[in-house]
């Protein structure tokens, strides 16, 4: 199996944090494989990008919600 496939199958298959123990075990190996490191890094940065995107807020939202729920 190719190194990249191993990373893809083991690290991302965990479906957990990319810093989870399973991924950490692979770190030494990944560091010796520039392609693998770049791949894992790019997945982390994809998540980071979405985490950095703040939800756009609308004014008086709570008021409208209370009205819809018939709460005073």
């Amino acid at each position, binding site marked *: 199996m190719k190194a990249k496939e191993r990373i893809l199958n083991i690290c*991302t298959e965990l479906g957990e944090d990319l810093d989870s123990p399973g991924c950490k075990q692979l770190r030494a190996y990944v560091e010796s494989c520039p392609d693998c490191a770049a791949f894992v890094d790019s997945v982390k940065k*994809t998540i*980071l990008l979405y985490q950095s995107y703040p939800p756009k*807020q609308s004014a008086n939202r709570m008021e409208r919600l*209370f009205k819809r729920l018939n709460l005073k």
Partner: protein
Amino acid sequence: MAGAKTKQQSTGEFALVRAAQAGDAEALKELVQRYEETVYNFAFKVCRSEEAAEDTLQEAFLSILTALKSFNYKSNFSTWIYRIVSNSCLMKWRKEKPERWESFEELDHPEERIQDSYTRWPDSPADKMLHRELQTEMDKAILALPPVYRLAFVLKDLEGLKIQEVAKSLDISVPAAKARIRRARLFLRDRLEPYVQN
């Protein structure tokens, strides 16, 4: 609300839920106020527009209030809320776009899309958030994901739930939740790469 709550937080919250279930209007209002922002932000991350997020917020709270008496204290209230909101989103999408429900060829065999080589992304991709074009592409990419994948990604990677909570919120097995998160991450990564690299 991200992640698991402490026992003390849950105890205080459960008292509030019990009062709301017993018909205490003030307790109900406090529950709504406490979770309004969380539900809206979650809805925005999934729907990617203020209008759709607010619509989802209102529909979700109508469902929450209807189902409140069925909350049985076997899970965190927050996990239960995520479950109700996720179901509300899924029902809405099922009506609107049934053809995009579960299967999505591009996501089914991610290993077939392994590239021969990978170029390292810039060290501060978040700086690129300043560029409107990237935000637009991020919205397009996540909206291109079928709802079941999108919800799994948002719950795990953006809301910070544990994998078991993601599975419970979506009423699926832990392995199924992991598979959806994995496929969603790879799909989004591939979609964003050209915009991040340039």
